């Protein structure tokens, strides 16, 4: 756990630094595909939400669910997605956020409400008089309902790749009038992730891993999933890939027999916190038969930050760092 | 052997019996008659321990209320007017249920129980049906199977609610003769209801005519089965002749304009 915590704080510090430094030249691939693009290069400090945004609005965002036009810089934002909440605060739009859903828990001090992002209530959302709603799914007729009220809804669904995650951050920056700092955030993330990949190496096809989504029954994530694609950057072999079926959406249920006989060298637990299963490395080591697995024998059972592992926001470098630390340790054995 | 004093029963806040008294000695046959809704079944249900009642019911010297469930069930067998017949149950298993009062809480029917059940089936002329399901029997056959279950309990008191309503005249006679023989040979006390007044008069020692929860008349067949009482209680026009054994024969008379 120690190396992880220090790695995490290092990443966070790096993020904060880059955000503050705000050196205008951002990577071109993170350029949003927006109509009135071309924001002023080298804009003001990212932390300043008072950036004159008039020039950037109205803006049309090519969101995954279709174009969304935002007439003026939104002063009251409601976020119904924990990832979007992280994105909003990371790009410097935090002061505009008036309400976040009950699952949003980062960064600390977000204006948490009882709003439910999975089964949203249109009237309850409207009660916050939002000028922009950000969510990860259009449930309960949210988009249609808010449209009647003239409120744009930006739907940023679960990212399938890391580039989609970057694009979402940039879009959220653009939609809130913080494009430049969003680009800086993305650039910082890229730099961090690249550094971790360079350090841990990307050719670990000899290392196999089991990504535990939940226990009893054991659900895993294949390389096709977002989390799996992150681990795949290290070249790791995912034991769930051989078990994947078209119908399981990348999340097959594995028999414990198979997990044992696949002999994974690393086990990533994304269900180890008290709120989502409590499957700590100690619990795993006590499972019948599991001590025979190399990962358990060699203490390569990694308690991930479950929230970070399940989201696709600005803390992605932390996820990469956690994996990198495990890879370095396992490769050394 | 069975003595009923001032029996009152209230069902659903309606008083159904208003102080009914009647009795019969060991080996006697008491028959309750009366129009529909008079309270005949209610008297039998009270005597079977199925209803809360006022007044007293005595079995010999013992008060019915003081007997615990199994002891009471060993003494009194009850055949309801409309028995519940599980359609899938085998005749043999059904009759064996009659042995329940003789079994300890955790014991199962043994050899003797089976022999008694088989004998009861024989007596009622249904032993050829033992392997059948109840639903595969005719109405009359079912009624005889139910009687066999009651006899399998080897009771000292038999409560029969309309035991022959579905039987043809031959089986009616056969069943009633059988019960009559049992009470004479084994001292079985019988309390029954019967709608056929002539038959009631032929088999019972004592008739009790109920009307609206009260005893309208009681006594021998000759005393109770009079055209006047029957007209008053049933609203029926009948003529009563004297049969060859001296017992009354009740025949309805058609209203010819």
């Amino acid at each position, binding site marked *: 756990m120690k190396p992880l915590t220090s790695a995490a704080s290092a990443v966070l510090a790096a993020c904060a630094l880059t955000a503050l430094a705000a050196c205008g030249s951002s990577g071109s691939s993170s350029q949003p595909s927006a109509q009135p693009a071309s924001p002023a290069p080298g804009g003001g400090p990212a932390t300043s939400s008072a950036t004159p945004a008039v020039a950037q609005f109205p803006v049309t965002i090519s969101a995954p669910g279709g174009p969304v036009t935002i007439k003026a810089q939104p002063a009251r934002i409601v976020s119904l997605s924990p990832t979007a909440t992280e994105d909003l605060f990371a790009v410097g739009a935090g002061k505009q956020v008036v309400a976040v859903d*009950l*699952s949003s828990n980062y960064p600390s001090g977000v204006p948490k409400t009882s709003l*439910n*992002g*999975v*089964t949203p209530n249109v009237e309850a959302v409207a009660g916050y008089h939002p000028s922009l709603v950000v969510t990860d799914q259009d449930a309960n007729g949210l988009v249609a309902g808010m449209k009647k009220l003239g409120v744009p809804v930006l739907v940023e669904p679960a990212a399938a790749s890391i580039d989609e995650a970057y694009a979402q951050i940039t879009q959220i920056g653009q939609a809130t009038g913080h494009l430049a700092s969003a680009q800086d955030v993305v650039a910082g993330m890229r730099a961090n992730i690249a550094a971790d990949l360079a350090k841990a190496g990307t050719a670990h096809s000899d290392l196999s891993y089991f990504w535990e989504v*939940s*226990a*009893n*029954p*054991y*659900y895993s994530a294949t390389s096709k999933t977002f989390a799996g694609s992150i681990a795949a950057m290290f070249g790791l072999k995912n034991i769930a890939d*051989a*078990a994947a*079926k078209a119908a399981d959406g990348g999340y097959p*249920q*594995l*028999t414990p*027999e*198979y997990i*044992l*006989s696949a002999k994974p060298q690393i086990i990533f637990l994304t*269900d180890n916190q*008290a*709120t*989502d*299963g*409590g*499957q700590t490395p100690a*619990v795993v080591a006590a499972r*019948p*038969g599991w*001590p*025979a697995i190399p990962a358990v024998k060699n203490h390569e059972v990694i308690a991930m930050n479950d929230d970070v592992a399940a989201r696709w926001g600005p803390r992605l470098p932390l996820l990469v760092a956690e994996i990198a630390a495990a890879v370095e340790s396992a490769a050394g054995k | 052997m069975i003595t009923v004093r001032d029996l009152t029963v209230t069902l659903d806040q309606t008083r159904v019996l208003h102080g009914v008294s009647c009795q019969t000695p060991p080996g006697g046959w008491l028959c309750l008659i009366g129009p529909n809704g008079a309270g005949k079944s209610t008297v039998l249900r009270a005597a*079977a*321990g*199925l209803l809360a009642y006022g007044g007293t019911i005595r079995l010999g010297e013992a008060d019915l209320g003081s007997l615990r*469930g*199994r*002891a009471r*069930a060993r003494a009194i067998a*009850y055949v309801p007017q409309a*028995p*519940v*017949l*599980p*359609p*899938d*149950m*085998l005749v043999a*298993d059904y009759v064996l*249920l*009659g042995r*329940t*009062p003789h079994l300890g809480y*955790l014991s*199962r029917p043994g050899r003797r129980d089976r022999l008694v059940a088989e004998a009861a089936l024989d007596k009622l002329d249904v032993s050829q049906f033992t392997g*059948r*399901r109840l*639903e595969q029997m005719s109405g009359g056959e079912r009624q005889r199977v139910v009687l066999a279950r009651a006899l399998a309990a080897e009771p000292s008191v038999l409560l029969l609610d309309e035991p022959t309503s579905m039987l043809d005249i031959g089986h009616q006679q056969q069943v009633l003769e059988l019960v009559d023989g049992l009470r004479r040979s084994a001292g079985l006390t019988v309390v029954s209801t019967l709608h056929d007044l002539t038959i009631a008069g032929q088999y019972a020692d004592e008739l009790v005519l109920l009307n609206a929860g009260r005893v309208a008349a009681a006594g021998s067949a000759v005393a109770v089965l009079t055209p006047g009482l029957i007209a008053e209680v049933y609203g029926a026009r009948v003529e009563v002749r004297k049969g060859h054994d001296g017992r009354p024969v009740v025949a309805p008379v058609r209203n010819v304009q």
Partner: protein
Amino acid sequence: MKPRRPGSRAALIGAAAAFVVAAALVSVFVGAANLNPVAVATALAGKIPFLGVHSGLSALDSAVLFQIRLPRIVLGALVGALLAVTGAGYQGVFRNPLVDSGMLGASAGAGLGATIAIVYLGGLGPAVVPVAAFTGSLAGVAIASLAGAIGAARGSLGSGPATLLLAGIAVGMFLTAAQTVVLQRSTQVLQQVYSWLLGSLSGASWQQVIEILPYAGVSVAVILLHGRHLDVLSVGDDEARALGINPRAVRAIAIGSCALAAAAAVAVSGLIGFVGIIVPHVARRLAGPSYLTVLPLSLLGGAGFLVLADTLARTVLAPAELPIGVVTALIGAPAFIWVLRGTRAVDT
């Protein structure tokens, strides 16, 4: 049903016992780990004292066989037996062949208990979920029984089992709704709760077997000893009382022990449907309606059925696994319809 031949009860029960052994044997030789059958047989023989056979299995394969596969088979047999005998018991109590082991708020209570544990008590570790499911299941039945008793005292349906059954349905719906409310508070755990609801034996361990054995033993013994009383109940409360049986006491004892059995099963396996309906139904088709035979036959049939169903669950998609509740429904539903094909209308 043909006339019963003497000894057919013993023959049926013997056949059912053979079915359990056969199911276990099939199950022990197949699995995602593809263990060598000869090595498995030798390893098993090695457990027989004084035989002195040495297993050819590696440490890991041996762990797969003795710590994963075997406890899972034993736990599956135990859970299947409990679910089926509970279903049969409830069917006798309620004189209704469509009643299931999850009735009377048992499943709904377990679901609510597990959800509360997952959402609010996660800090106490994963071991709290089975305890909460067990407690919830028993509490569900207790609440339903209380509601049924109040309904019987005041209501128009009388004190018979129908009032209790209806109260159980109402309480079950209420508890399920309460569970949904709790879930709404914490949508991150949806996946965890739903995979629990689908039922699974994938966490099976010898420890679980040992933990539920006392509850299973006591409840099954009590249920089996009341087969004759359930037969008497089938002629209705009035006639049962006239036969010297106290129907309320019998129902209370049977419901209590069935609730205990179902709670023990649900605690280690989650919600597995269909076993409690289909197995007793097949037992009745084979043996007739007497609970003296239906109960032991259901016990054994349920054990064999669930072992087979779980074998399919862990092999059909191997190395992936199907939720066992899906398997019992997938093979249970068509089998049930096939059985109904020959069932007379009066059964229900």
